[in-house]
């Protein structure tokens, strides 16, 4: 497949990134290193918290989204990913429902918007709406991702 440019990417195109099952061991390992709050690290203390049990750090859920996004890109060289560059950040990250041990989450990414960059005519900004749903279809995480993508060189 020939690689596509920013101009070729269509708003609304959606990628299903696959599923991921969170284990308690992994939730605790991530949290001990990066988010050591008892709701993420201590099953006993978490049980007595408002969450009633251990839950994954929101950053862990976001990192798994990234992991599956890269894996999907490597499995299928899809047009929307071919000329992806680095990301300047994200917006509107919401962790609306807890992710608990044993839950299998389904991740997705949809093209949400495109913006020209006055300062960098060789690049365009791509906005993606990224989501994680649980097995019941409830939305647990969402955010707007941003990526720089190469523009079609002028002939």
């Amino acid at each position, binding site marked *: 497949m020939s690689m596509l440019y920013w101009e070729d990417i269509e708003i609304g195109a959606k990628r299903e990134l696959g599923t991921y099952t969170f284990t308690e061991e992994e939730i605790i390992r991530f949290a001990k290193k990066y988010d050591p709050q008892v709701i993420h690290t201590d099953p006993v203390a978490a049980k007595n918290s408002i969450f009633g049990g251990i839950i994954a750090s929101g950053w862990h859920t976001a990192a798994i989204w990234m*992991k599956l996004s890269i894996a999907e890109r490597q499995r299928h060289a899809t047009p929307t990913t071919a000329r992806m560059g680095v990301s300047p950040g994200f917006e509107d990250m919401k962790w609306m429902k807890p992710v608990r041990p044993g839950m299998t989450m389904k991740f997705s990414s949809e093209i949400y918007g495109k913006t020209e960059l006055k300062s960098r005519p060789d690049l365009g900004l791509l906005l993606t709406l990224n989501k994680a749903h649980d097995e019941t279809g409830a939305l647990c995480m969402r955010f707007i991702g941003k990526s720089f993508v190469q523009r079609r060189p002028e002939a």
Partner: protein
Amino acid sequence: MTGILHFEDLEIGRSFACGTYNVTKEEIVEFAREFDPQPHHLDEEAAKNSMLGGLAASGWHVCAMTMRMFADHMIPRMAERGGSGSPEARWMKPVRPGDRLRTEAAVVGKKESRARTDIGHVTFECRVYNQTEQVCLLYMTPVVARRGH
């Protein structure tokens, strides 16, 4: 350190130092292998030719490191009830092996809860500086804070 900070104490403009984080090449590569295996986070040679111009930490890794600083230095000082996301994060400069990061958390917004008299909403702007005082990450983090009385 004085007493625990409640909603009333977290006045707009107040700023808190949240410690430091030493970034190693090993940790950058380890995080990237597990969560963000792109050449510019994994391989020094490949990274030289990338948009980042050299090996740099995954942006998600920088968020995670910042969370660690906030969790170690800010959360224990507050009567807080957790966060639920971030309206904005900007990865402004690459984070490199050997960088020594520090985080400043400033209160930039607060509002009382309409539904509950015992809590309020406080928004922090976290700025993560490297050792040359460049801001590498800027992100907003709203938390729910308990009221003192």
